[in-house]
């Protein structure tokens, strides 16, 4: 029963945050709601005994990817005209309130889940809810995809540097600046 209540609260907040991400005009507000959304989804993972995945979700998604989004948003320095300014004005205390509620619910999700709260055999839970088991699986059966993922990340680093590098001002660029595109 407790699990159901936590799930429905999480689900309602996830849906609300997803809609907010999609509908807000202000990209910074949307990115903040994306962080919240990813954090709540980490709560859903914790509810399903995937605690390590929940930790990875918070660290990698909310911690790294959305920070990258925010960096780019700040770097572009879009004017209100670019955004056709927002009508959705959110007061700060609302954001703080939602954030606090999120933290409480994710905490409850972490408390409710786990071996005691679910009617699964201990054998299965040892298998799926265990970080050690994930590590063994990852480095035994999935070692090749794992290594390929490292190459993929290296390629992504090089590619993003090459793409975002400032190219020399050529004739073509000047032509484009006049509005040929």
């Amino acid at each position, binding site marked *: 029963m407790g699990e159901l209540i936590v799930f429905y609260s999480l689900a309602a907040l996830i849906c609300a945050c997803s809609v907010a991400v999609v509908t807000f005009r202000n990209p910074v507000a949307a990115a903040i709601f994306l962080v919240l959304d990813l954090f709540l989804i980490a709560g*859903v993972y914790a509810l399903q005994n995937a605690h390590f995945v929940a930790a990875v979700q918070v660290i990698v998604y909310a911690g790294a*990817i959305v920070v990258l989004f925010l960096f780019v948003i700040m770097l572009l320095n879009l004017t209100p005209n*670019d955004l056709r300014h927002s009508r959705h004005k959110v007061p700060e205390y609302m954001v703080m309130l939602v954030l606090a509620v999120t933290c409480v619910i994710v905490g409850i999700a972490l408390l409710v889940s786990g071996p005691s709260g679910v009617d699964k055999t201990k054998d299965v839970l040892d298998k799926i809810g265990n970080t050690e088991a994930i590590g063994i699986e990852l480095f035994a059966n999935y070692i090749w995809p794992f290594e390929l993922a490292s190459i993929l990340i290296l390629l992504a680093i090089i590619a993003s540097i090459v793409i975002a590098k400032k190219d020399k001002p050529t004739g073509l660029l000047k032509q484009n600046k006049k509005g040929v595109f």
Partner: protein
Amino acid sequence: MVSIEHYLILATVVFFCGMFAVLFRRNIIFMMMGIELMLNAVNIVFVSASNELGHLDGQIMVFFVVTVAACEAAIGLAMVIAIFRRYGTINTDFLRVLRG
């Protein structure tokens, strides 16, 4: 007890929100946020399947999806910067030419 259908419905809602962003927003940054939402919906399905079947493969897949998402975000945002530097806008209405 929360059944797997609950999680699948939640994932569907999140996926459609992301799809809405990709289809109907004109700002490239919002479209990329939509892609992140869709990848997260897929991750929810993977984890719930892993939990339902008592098998770890779904959780392992989530790690690879997260890796791909990180790479996609890095390259996509680099492209956003390059586009903004070149054309002065990231509104897709103004980016109609496929020529570099």
